């Protein structure tokens, strides 16, 4: 049987970059999964990832997040951006620690608004660890997703050794 969980593309940064783009995403899968390990130059502990699809930079994104920092749980919301909360490390996090995230985009070719799920976490052996679960929605278009841009929420660049893997899952 053919593999149903396939690597489409990957990018491991050899130098800092403001964003990472996956383009020309094949339309032959059922779902997409992004698995990311990232750290930014943000002068804080916790970084957010910002997502845009199909070069749509309008306010057609929203999200609802649940997050915890080792001391308390909270919930926040965006209505004009898609941020996967607390999914990357900022640059005053413990040295050599990167945030980890998985973003699942089901039915990315279906002619409908696109819901998605994200989970991000960073354990730093410090009093401020973090994790967040995010429900996201893209409602700018019902077109299939053919490109994904991942940019930094608070800082300016993703740092060297940040890695971004895009997988396709096929149900037939």
């Amino acid at each position, binding site marked *: 049987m053919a593999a149903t*969980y396939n690597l489409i593309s990957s990018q491991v940064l050899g130098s800092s970059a403001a964003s990472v783009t996956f383009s020309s995403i094949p339309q032959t899968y059922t779902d997409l999964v992004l698995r990311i390990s990232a750290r930014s130059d943000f002068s804080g502990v916790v970084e957010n990832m910002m997502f845009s699809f199909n070069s749509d930079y309008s306010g057609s994104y929203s999200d609802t997040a649940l997050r915890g920092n080792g001391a308390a*749980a909270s*919930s*926040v*919301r965006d*209505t004009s951006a898609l941020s996967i909360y607390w999914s990357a490390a900022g640059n005053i996090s413990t040295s050599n620690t990167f945030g980890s995230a998985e973003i699942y985009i089901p039915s990315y070719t279906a002619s*409908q608004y696109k*819901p998605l799920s994200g989970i991000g976490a960073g354990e730093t052996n410090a009093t401020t660890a973090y994790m967040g679960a995010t429900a996201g929605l893209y409602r700018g278009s019902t077109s299939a997703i053919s490109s994904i841009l991942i940019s930094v929420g608070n800082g300016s660049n993703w740092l060297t050794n940040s890695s971004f893997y895009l997988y396709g899952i096929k149900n037939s």
Partner: protein
Amino acid sequence: MATATYVPIATQTLSTSASSITFSSIPSTYTDLRLVFVGNSSAANRYLTLTFNADSGTNYSMTYLVGDGTTAASGNRTSDTSLYTNNYGGSSITIPQFITADIFSYTGSTYKTVLCTTSSDKNGSGNTDRVAGLWRSTSAITSITMQYLITGSNINAGTTATLWGI
């Protein structure tokens, strides 16, 4: 070629609305099951529930963690007649919600543990949920039925559910 370990067992995409979706005759040859649901309901803010092997006894329970954009909360439900995949419902008539359920050791002779995620953002409302569920049965799971509660709410046309074996 290596043997595939993430195998689609069945997919159903509704061409017309339906009161439920059922996967039956689930093979017992996998270790775990994963259910992926993308859809919406004919009435808003309904709960998608799971029933295993058509068991409608009070054998289901769950503990949830939820965020609604303002507040984080946790609680539980006990002795339900189906497994709630979330506690806030969050379904919409028009905006699809994304729900997953990982069902561990579904052929084992112990009670069955299920981890659910619900992503129901609606641009200014909605919720994200994580649920630990339990079905108190020692039988292998051979069928799964998805249904929106409260009674009278259908699953809309266009909804897709896929069952994976791992």
